[in-house]
């Protein structure tokens, strides 16, 4: 009778190692970046339900942005996270499970646009003053505050563009940077609305 079955596999160190590895993969997985966008009831505490979910379950948050939409009863969030397909599937399921969440989409599943805003305060004296102005122009940034020693440059673009601007200017001249985190929207007909 037992011949019908394969002999019971004893757990081996190898299996255990696989299991451990799998666990580690699940916890640490950073292989795919996802941009998740959601609509949530604009109520006190809603943000902490989302951020609490990520920390409690050990999911990564690279950035999170939130603000009310044109319908002020709703807020829209964009969350940049990373994980394996399984993890991201759980993230979207868990987000959907939150009672105040109305809709969730993984924008990175298809064509979409991402934008981030950065404000950079740089030292602008002597020859650096002209150089900074030039760099801002090259990156299509705008200088929105001027003193005799500094500029504040406003720059919008993808994460990569902002990164390369920061990389392109002399790091010694950067006094301060602030970034908004990413806003995302689907291309074409894809609309996230109730």
């Amino acid at each position, binding site marked *: *009778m*037992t011949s*019908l*079955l*394969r002999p*019971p*596999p*004893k*757990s081996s160190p190898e*299996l*255990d190692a*696989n*299991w451990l590895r*799998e666990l580690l993969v699940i916890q640490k997985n950073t292989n795919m970046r996802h941009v998740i966008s959601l609509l*949530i*009831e604009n109520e*006190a*505490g809603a943000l*902490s*339900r989302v951020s*609490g979910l990520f920390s*409690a379950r050990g999911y990564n948050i690279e950035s999170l942005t939130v603000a009310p939409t044109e319908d002020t009863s709703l807020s829209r969030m964009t969350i940049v996270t990373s994980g394996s397909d*399984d993890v991201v*599937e*759980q993230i979207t*399921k*868990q987000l*959907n*499970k939150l*009672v*105040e*969440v*109305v809709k969730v989409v993984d924008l990175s599943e298809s064509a979409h646009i991402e934008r981030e805003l950065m404000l950079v305060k740089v030292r602008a004296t002597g020859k650096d003053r002209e150089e900074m102005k030039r760099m801002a122009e090259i990156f299509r940034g705008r200088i929105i505050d001027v003193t005799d020693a500094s500029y504040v440059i406003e720059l919008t673009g993808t994460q990569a563009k902002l990164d390369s601007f920061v990389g392109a200017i002399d790091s010694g001249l950067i006094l301060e940077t602030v970034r908004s985190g990413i806003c995302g929207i689907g291309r074409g007909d894809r609309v996230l609305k*109730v």
Partner: protein
Amino acid sequence: MVITGAEIVIRCLQEEKVDYLFGYPGGAVLYIYDELFKQDKVRHVLVRHEQAAIHAADGYARSTEKVGVALVTSGPGATNAVTGIATAYCDSIPLVIISGQVPSAAIGQDAFQEVDTVGITRPCVKHNFLVRDVRDIAETIKKAFYLAKTGRPGPVLVDIPKDITAQKCEFAYPETVSMRSYNPVVKGHHGQIKKALQLLLEAKRPMVYAGGGVVLGDAADKLTALVRKLGFPCTNTLMGLGAYPATDRQFVGMLGMHGNYEANMGMHYCDVLLAVGARFDDRVIGNPAHFSSEPRKIIHIDIDPSSISKRVKVDVPIVGDVGEVLGELLALLDNTAEKPEPQSLGVWWKQIEEWRRRDCLKFNQGEEGLIKPQFVVQKLWEVTGGDAFVTSDVGQHQMWAAQYYKFDKPRRWVNSGGLGTMGFGLPAAMGVQLAHPGSPVACITGEGSIQMNIQELSTCKQFRLPIKVILLNNGFLGMVRQWQELFHGNRYSESYMDALPDFSRLAEAYGHVGIKVDKPGDVEGALREAFKQKNDLVFMDFQVDPTENVYPMVKGGQGLTDMILSAEDL
């Protein structure tokens, strides 16, 4: 009519047909208690610790199809309730908890007895609310009940600042609730259900694995009908016990860490697995890599999409209510001439019977010597005709209760599976007994666990609850001792229970009947005597073998088929 917030709270509970409210008063809920005093529809049960209020409401809910309700004050009242709330959350039990909060203007001022109750409970509730306006009370409570019992059930907390319970407004209880953000799926996808049926009909080595979801969804009848019609073997999780009659031949017992040999082997070697309202817990499937090493097709019915493909990838996911989905499966089965192929099913059953012959739950009770804990549970089952409500605490006694009390009906077995909360058993039994006056209710416990909420013996006296406490007293935190014996070289670090009280006399001091039993020959007589006492709580202190371990056992991280069946296997 214009009434106060406190009266609105009580009127809402009346509208929800709440008969028992478990609670403990304090400053922030005084207006609510004042309104309770003025009416007699909602009966208040005064516990001796807020944790017990939540467990009692929880026991009430688990043993009925209703929502359990509790009321606590702000600050320490709320924090004491947290363990109870988390216990209910981990087992998906529908509760509504009303907590008092400091007055609105004092919130955030580090006021006396102020804690951020909504913040503290957020990770262990299905949802919670802070009411900011007296006009929102009725709608919020309506939503709380609706959220607690629909979809995947769970505890919902409503935090109400004191000033709001004193303010007045017009009262009208909403008839219906609709929330654009919350629409649980009830009906399963028809195409998926058809696919599932096809797989089941083609199965050669099928297995049905049913969990707490079948109990929560009140679908035990449908599950039983389906399993019988198909002629398949069926196993239950710890939370699912009673979802399929345990005395039926097709039942192969509980599975998992302390599951039956035949259940675990069947689970591992089946070629088609029908998982119903069960969530592939780590105490159930053991090492997931080992579990996946055997190819099989998995059908998974669950109302919560996040339970599906969380730990084990499934082939046919069906999101929906168990009752609905099983009903549809049954209807499809009725309308097809196809049947599972009898020959391979026969071969599979022969294999299962061979596994069953290992008789993995056998134990030796000598006529003399120490009482075996298993023997007490077996006798309890016999004496109560298998028809009692049984609550339990957490530890070895819990596993013996699950293994040796054969539950034929759902909602008879009440225990904390997900959180594993010691101290759950006695207060839960209070809720069960209030919900089923006149029915036998037993609380199986250990001398460690019972001391975590022993003060509730006083509540039992006040409300004349004739619970039968079955203490399997082994003088150890037995489950901890077992792990230390098996995995920590017999170093019994802090697992010996020293300075134990004389429990039977302690029970007597509370005004109950206490019995101490230390001979195997006295076990049955004592139980019979106890269950004859219809009006009294009887506390039975069984002095059991302190060295007994729970078998079978799958060690953490190992595969389901690597079972230690008895001490001889070590």
